[in-house]
């Protein structure tokens, strides 16, 4: 089974994100970038499938600027076989990315597309769902366990208040949740070897997709600063405040 993993380059999860002073977005200049953590989980799952003999080839694809290539290299260092960069300097929104990925899927003909459930930058949580709709493939989102048996997948999904296990027919789009696995550290020798693995580059035009944005960002602002707490003198005062101020009881 050939597996395509879609990955996204985002601001590193450890960086303190700053909103631009004009409120048009967040500062990305000179900010450390990394692979979206959920994408990393998707790559890890694909590599494990390959190690278990379930996947025959793992191809990673990223849509974005030239420097997304670094993120593809990370995936190659983790164990993916080759990479595809769909290069675009335009701002890419979920629907555009889903269309681009559809183009890549038609070229590559994978049986399974794995991706993160959402990216930690804008938390859309749409691209996987849109891709499955565009392809008319089965979808399984928020996967915490994936098992393959002939022609289908059994996927455990993390849903509100519990777990749901579903069966989906292949081909399918599956999005990874946090507990699917713990991604490995790419070993230093593999980081060096990843340089020799091939990365193909293509453009939105090559795939016949118009990636222009459909949504416009009105304003980006920081969450309000946390207010300081207060000490209460007695249980009676606490109950009074919970009732009348916080209005939770």
């Amino acid at each position, binding site marked *: 089974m050939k597996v395509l993993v879609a990955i996204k380059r985002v601001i590193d999860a450890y960086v303190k994100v700053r909103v631009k002073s004009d409120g048009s977005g967040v500062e990305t200049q000179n900010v450390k970038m990394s692979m979206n953590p959920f994408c990393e989980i998707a790559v890890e799952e694909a590599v494990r499938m390959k190690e278990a003999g379930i996947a025959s080839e793992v191809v990673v694809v990223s849509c974005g600027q030239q420097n997304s290539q670094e993120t593809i*290299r990370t995936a190659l260092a983790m164990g993916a076989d080759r990479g595809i960069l769909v290069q675009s300097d335009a701002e890419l929104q979920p629907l555009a990315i889903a269309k681009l990925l559809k183009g890549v899927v038609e070229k590559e003909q994978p049986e399974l597309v794995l991706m993160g459930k959402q990216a930690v930058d804008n938390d859309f949580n749409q691209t996987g769902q849109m891709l499955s709709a565009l392809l008319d493939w089965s979808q399984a989102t928020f996967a915490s366990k994936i098992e393959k048996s002939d022609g289908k997948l059994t996927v455990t999904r993390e849903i509100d208040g519990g777990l749901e296990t579903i069966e989906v027919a292949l081909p399918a789009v599956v999005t990874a949740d946090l507990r699917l696995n713990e991604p490995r*550290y790419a070993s*230093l020798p593999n980081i060096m070897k990843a340089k020799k693995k091939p990365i193909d580059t293509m453009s939105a035009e090559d795939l016949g997709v118009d990636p222009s944005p459909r949504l416009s960002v009105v304003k980006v602002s920081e969450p309000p600063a946390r207010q300081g707490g207060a000490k209460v003198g007695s249980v009676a005062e606490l109950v009074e405040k919970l009732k009348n101020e916080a209005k939770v009881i």
Partner: protein
Amino acid sequence: MALDEDTLEQLLDTVRRFVRERLVPNEERVAEEDAIPAELVQEMAELGLFGLSVPQEYEGLGLTMSEEVKVAFELGRTSPAFRSLLGTNNGIGSQGIVLDGTEEQKHKYLPKLARGEIIGSFALTEPDSGSDASSLRTTARRDGDHYVLNGTKRFITNAPEAGLFTVMARTDTAQKGARGISAFLVEAGTPGLRLGKPDRKMGQRGAHTCDVIFEDCRVPAEQLLGGIEGQGFKTAMKVLDRGRLHISAVCVGVAERLIEDALSYAIERKQFGQPIAEFQLIQAMLADSRTEAYAARSMVLDAARRRDAGETVTTEASCCKLFASEMVGRVADRAVQIHGGAGYIADYGVERFYRDVRLFRLYEGTSQIQQLVIARNMIREHSQ
């Protein structure tokens, strides 16, 4: 071959992340148990950290000196005990073989050292010969196709874990100095090789040293490093430059970590109604520490670049070792001072680092030996 910028950055990023996510959270446990958990050793090996300086044809990374010190900056940002375990495989435990080993010796040991399957240990120091290393007394007497080793080695880093010892012994007892010394590759478990009790040290718990005792220990003649007698001491001296730069880089890493910890504490801790970081006397300690760490970092990078360019950097490596090890001592002392009473309490960890870094001024040549090396080279260069 030097790595391109992206690959190096990715490599450093991975080490940084591994240190932050896997090693830093285990510092206290390692000190408490006086051991690095086996699963962490395994992870360090899988990451490739034991083969930084082993050439690629022997399954290592073959990093240049500039690249290696950048990795060491990152490894310095956690307890030195972790670095100590992989230090010998990257330094004195493997470099003798890399530089002067026979092709058979390289093939036999370097891949295993690079993969971390065996720990290499370097046995030079003796009870009566430390800084005066060339006066060592351990003997190796030729007996047919074997050598018979006798003597005691002291404070041998990683000896309790070691699978392979590079042992300096006198093959020519008529030669009192360096020329009578040869290096042997002795595998752990060789009959006649015995380990003493692990030493009880001031710090760096989790890293171990002990005596290594040879009593009529018979070693096959092909285990003579490089196959030539009388070369051992030269080999030892050749590997020192690299080791000294590596240690200097670790000192920089530890200093930067301590500065970060001290700064966070100073910003959080309030006295007289404001963060102590607002007080100028605290600021002076922070600023001096930052300045000195930056100086040491710049020195290490410069010396490493020169070495990669083919210059002899014996003097510069000693300058780095002298300055960086003394610097981290001062930085650790100030970090304790900034922490105040908390700096003396084990829960904060800063007192542990204070004890850990004391070793840097002692091993791989004391500060006084570095001063002698630097001054002697200066005088020699002047008279040339």
